[in-house]
């Protein structure tokens, strides 16, 4: 694999070197890369439900709502350079994660009922800074990125860079990008397992003194805290795009991703078929938490092909194939047909299909054996297919008549998306995007 990656890098260098020696007949007139400061405000409301919560071992409510808001400010530093600051927050309420501790609510514990405890909600915050530079002839583009994100049990530090080269009279572009994420868990375990950690009192702890176990009263889970809580991700991507005619252009992209560290989610329960069940109220106590390998290598190749049909219609298509060494293979295909109904309004109907095979380590509720090395009942790693239907509308005012302070409103995007998996999970997303430009 390393040889193949080196081959791709060598090919990229050869292509960019050879083509950089060509004389680009494009005018060297130097236009500012970005004329003025732009602000994008993005927001979304997401809700989902399903019956296969990973927190409760593949059974239980997956009800979740999430509200996201982000500002993206792009500032031209001079003719060639742009600084982009992307700041966002995401607040969610999850019935599933509330059942990390299902015993702190007012109702009897049940995997299909949300608990009212602290783990039912969390806030994710992200800040990303990107600096990009274009060459005088606009045929070379460099960028560097630094990001941090944080939530209660997770912290991520990311940095990366990219380089793109245009040639053939800006008809062809090749690009390469690399990103590294250095993440750290603050591992949270299911409540009933915590007293079985090293130094814990097991069934003699206060928790079990205050709760009555039914079923197998000799509850003895297979549990050891994870020794390492770091997760590092390294990605390398190659892109190639080509104008194929006055109305047709396409691109292909190859992504390689390597992950190391704690790839399991510490609070996701697993129930074994060869262990007698124990309960408190109607909630089955965990036999273990998810165990996944500490490395994963992903490969994905995808392509886009866009065709300008006429002044009213554009055809946008996308396909991506994915494979990893956990046994997951996936196909994604989408089609979108923007319809310009007036010079200001465009409609965006689209359809997306996605499917994946199951990870080698996935099994349903009570189908794993306690002798297995790796196990998970997270249905995000199961075999399934999903259909997605979207309908959006966009308003564009090139004259930016509506103003807030010194910023004129350039466009408004509104989209509704319905996502439906064939394993009970379904989701709805409403997303809004506003773009302002400084006078």
């Amino acid at each position, binding site marked *: 694999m390393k040889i*193949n*990656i080196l081959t*791709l890098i060598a090919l990229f260098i050869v292509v960019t070197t050879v083509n950089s020696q060509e004389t680009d007949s*494009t005018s060297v007139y130097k236009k500012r890369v970005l004329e003025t400061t732009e602000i*994008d405000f*993005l*927001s*979304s409301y*997401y809700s*989902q439900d399903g019956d296969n919560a990973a927190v409760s071992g593949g059974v239980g409510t997956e009800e979740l709502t999430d509200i996201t808001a*982000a500002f*993206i400010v792009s500032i031209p530093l001079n003719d060639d350079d742009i600084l982009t600051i992307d700041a966002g927050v995401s607040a969610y309420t*999850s019935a599933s994660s509330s059942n990390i501790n299902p015993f702190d609510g007012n109702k009897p514990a049940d995997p299909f009922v949300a608990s009212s405890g602290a783990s039912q909600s969390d806030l*994710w915050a992200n800040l990303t800074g990107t600096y990009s530079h274009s060459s005088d002839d606009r045929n070379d583009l460099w960028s560097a990125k630094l990001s941090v*994100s944080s939530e209660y*049990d*997770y912290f991520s530090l*990311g940095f990366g860079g990219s380089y793109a080269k245009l040639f053939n009279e800006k*008809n*062809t572009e090749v690009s390469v990008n690399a*990103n590294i*994420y250095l*993440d750290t868990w603050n591992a949270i375990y299911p409540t009933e397992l915590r007293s079985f950690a090293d130094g814990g009192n097991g069934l003699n702890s206060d928790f079990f003194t205050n709760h009555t176990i039914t079923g197998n009263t000799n509850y003895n889970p297979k549990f050891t805290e994870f020794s390492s809580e770091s997760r590092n*991700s*390294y990605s390398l991507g190659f892109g*190639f795009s080509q*104008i194929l005619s*006055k109305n047709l*252009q*396409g691109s*292909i992209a*190859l*992504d390689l*991703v390597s*992950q190391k560290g704690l790839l399991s*989610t510490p*609070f996701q329960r697993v129930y074994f078929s060869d262990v007698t069940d124990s309960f408190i109220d109607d909630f089955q106590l965990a036999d273990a938490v998810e165990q996944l390998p500490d490395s994963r290598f*992903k*490969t*994905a*190749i995808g392509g886009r092909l*866009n065709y*300008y049909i006429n002044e009213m219609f*554009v055809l946008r298509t996308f396909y991506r194939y*994915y494979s*990893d060494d*956990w046994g997951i293979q*996936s196909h994604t295909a989408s089609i979108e047909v923007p319809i*310009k109904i007036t010079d200001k309004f*465009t409609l965006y109907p689209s359809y997306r299909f*996605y499917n*994946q095979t199951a990870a080698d380590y996935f099994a349903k509720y009570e189908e794993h054996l306690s002798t297995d090395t790796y196990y998970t009942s997270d249905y*995000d790693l199961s075999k399934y297919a*999903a259909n997605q239907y*979207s309908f959006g509308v966009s308003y564009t005012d090139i004259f930016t008549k509506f103003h807030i302070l010194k910023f004129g409103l350039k466009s408004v995007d509104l*989209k509704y998306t319905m*996502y439906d998996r064939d394993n009970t999970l379904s*989701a709805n997303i409403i*997303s*809004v995007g506003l773009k302002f430009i400084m006078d």
Partner: protein
Amino acid sequence: MIKKSLGLIIVIITFSSCVAVKEYEKVNINDPDMALANKKSDRNISTAHSYREAASGANGGKTGGGCGCN
């Protein structure tokens, strides 16, 4: 698969040398809806995919920038 990808890239690069649409002929190509990327306003939909689908990349959800575990 990487060998196939490499072959595809070489073929496309070879054919690309035959095509050169002039700048003044790119009116349709430069239409915002012809961009070879998702719209910025679709970002939160892509984030949802990275949380719920195993085939996500390295820039969101379960592979960085957040655990994507809810």
